[in-house]
Structure formats: C-alpha cells, structure tokens
C-alpha cells in the first residue's frame, strides 16, 4: 500500500519525523521531509523541526516502511468498540458518591 504523500518520481525518499520534547514523553510525529539517506534526514530534521528547542531526540522513519490501515474502509475497521461502553469507567454509575472509586 502506498504511503500518504509518497510520489515515485521524487528524487529523494520521504521520511516521517518524530520528536521527543523531553525525557519522559513519547516521540511525537511532527512532519516529514525528503532526504537522500537516514543521516541527512536526521540532520535536516534537526534544522527544520527543532530550531527552538522543540526536542531532545529525533526519529526519522522511511515513509514507505509504514504500513497504514485502509483510509477507504470508512470507519468499518474501527467499529468493534462501538456499543461496548462498559469499557469506560463512566459506564458504572451505581458507585456514585462512594469515595476513592
């Protein structure tokens, strides 16, 4: 399956960039860029996405290495949790008023 934004005719491959803002936080997707190799992708990501101390760690991932769910499935793929609100704490109301529960 092709990756969003991936065009075969681009000279350089597409990389998705993830930045960790601080220790204790996840790496979060911040954007993408084109670069000839992984080293250049990391350097370019530093210049492009962390000019103002936005991060202390960067991941770059080749976009074509990402497998995505089918965007045309129109939600069918995610339907199974529907009607299963007993999976949420708010479903249980009889304990209302009872402390620390």
């Amino acid at each position, binding site marked *: 399956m092709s990756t969003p934004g991936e*065009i075969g*005719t*681009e000279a350089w491959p597409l990389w998705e960039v993830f930045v960790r803002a601080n220790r204790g936080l996840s790496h979060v997707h911040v954007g993408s860029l084109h670069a000839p*190799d992984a080293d250049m992708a990391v350097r370019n990501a530093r210049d492009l996405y962390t000019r103002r101390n936005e991060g202390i760690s960067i991941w770059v991932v080749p976009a074509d290495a990402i497998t995505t769910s089918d965007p045309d499935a129109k939600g069918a793929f995610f339907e199974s949790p529907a009607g299963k609100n007993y999976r949420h704490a708010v479903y249980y109301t009889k304990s209302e008023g009872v402390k620390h529960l």
Partner: protein
Amino acid sequence: MTSPADLSVVDPELSVEEARFNDLIAADSRIEPRDWMPDAYRKTLIRQISQHANSEIIGMQPESNWITRAPSLKRKAILMAKVQDEAGHGLYLYSAAQTLGITREEMTEQLIAGKARYSSIFNYTTPTWADMGAIGWLVDGAAICNQVPLCRASYGPYGRAMVRICKEESFHQRQGFEILLELMQGTEAQREMAQDAVNRWYWPSLMMFGPPDDQSPNSAQSMAWNIKRFSNDELRQRFVGMLVPQAEVMGVTLPDPNLRFNEETGEYDMSEIDWTEFNEVLAGRGPANAERLRRRREAHEDGAWVREAAHEYARKQSERALAAAGAVA
C-alpha cells in the same frame, strides 16, 4: 446540464466519494492526502500552497541582502535566524504541496522558469536598514493576518504547516517593530529613514491581501471549500485597524491622508488603493522581479553538485551495506 442525481446513476462510486467530501467540508472537518477530492480543489490547493512556498523562498532575498550590513552582531544573528525561518517555512509548504501529487522538482522548475507566481511584495528593493524593520512590521504583519485563518484551512497538511509557521512568524513581526521603534527614538536622520521605509512599504503591504472582494473571482469558491475563511477586504481592514495604534506607539505616520476612524461603521476609512502599480509588479515589471528570479535560478543551479553528491553518497552507502550483509550471509 447534469444534475447530481444523474451522476449517481452514471457513476455511483464517484457520487459516494463526492458526497463524503461534501459532508466533511460541511462539518468543517479536514481533508487528508489520501481522501478523494475534486480536481478543482486539488488544483486550487497546489497553486495556492506552491505560490506560498515560493514566496517564502524568494522572500529570503530582500533580507539576506542586509545580513552582511546589519548594524550590530545582535541584529545580524536575528536576521540570520529570520531568513533561516523563511527557508523552513518554504520547506513545510513544499511538503504540504507534495502530498497533493506535485513534486518538489516540478515546483522549483516552474518557479525558476518564471511560470509560477510568488507574492509580488518581494519584488520591491531594500535600499536602507529601516526596510528590515518595515518588512518585519508591515509585510510579516500582513502575512500573519492572512495566515492565522489559514491554520483552519480544510486541507489538513496545509493547516498544520500554517500552525507551525504562525508560531514562528510572530517573532518576525516584533523584531521589525523593534527596529523601527529604535530608529524612531534615534537621530533626526534615523527617524527620517524609518518614516521613508514605512512610506514605501505601507501600500504594497495592503496590496498583499489581494484585489478588492468584487474583483476577486476565486475567493467565493475558496471560501465555500473552507480554504479561505475571510475575504480580502475584511482581512485588509482588520490589518489597518491593528496598525494604527502601533504606528502611534512608534511615532510614524501612515502615508494615507484619508485614513480616519469612522464612528458609524466602526472601521477605518482609507484612500483607494492604486492597483495599477500592483498589476505592473504582478506582470513582472516591478523593481526587482528579474533580479529575484535570476538569483533563485543561480542558487538552484550552483547547488546542483551538492544534490548530486548527497545522492551519490547515499547510493554508495546503501551499496556497501548490502555488500556487507551479503558477506555475513
């Protein structure tokens, strides 16, 4: 005439996709790269986003002109950071346009061949240091006014790029204001230089919002698609309303004798804009059109060896990695 009902008979698949697109727009949701979208929507976005990206890249030139001549080391460092930001903004926007199916190479070719537009404001020259102040205060100010509503543009990648850009752009406007303010607190000659720059940049910055609403044929469609949120005249009026008190703080005079607050409308009345000048610059007859394109073309061509070297290095490295993997196996 074909009605939507007829379409669904001819091509039920298309009409389902189209209905979904229309529903997303009606719900003020976002369109993402792999969603179906009308060709005209895609074309409009490619044109707008690539022009916007080109503007950021060409916009580096009038300011880079002053990096070697900045009056202090502090101002030099600030100017370099700002020009680097413009490069970054260009890249965010090129990336957003690339998700629509146009390549970076195509956009660059269109720009250096003179086939793609960029904001005509960058075809004006920057003869004095005060121009750095006026560009930051007026040009970046107008750009922010235009761009803040674009953060909510219906095309996801464009809106996300604009969020990043707007966050960084506010420093650009403030540093420009500060340059002019310091000049206005300086000698008589410095005050004259600041006022002269404001005189030259005021009208072109108001023209950045585009033609008046009744002469802006594409605006209605862009607003229907939630790409554009406010009309050209609305944004221009909002901008002037912000400038007037700022000009007072600074002590500069905005060069419009008819500019005054209208108690009835709650807005500023102003002189008619001279659109013949705008159209001349747009048609390529501005003070620096040829120079801007020439420098962009040179930079692209002079940089070819860097792109080739990077490509060749990547190829060799992956070849070596493959060979090493083969040796192990």
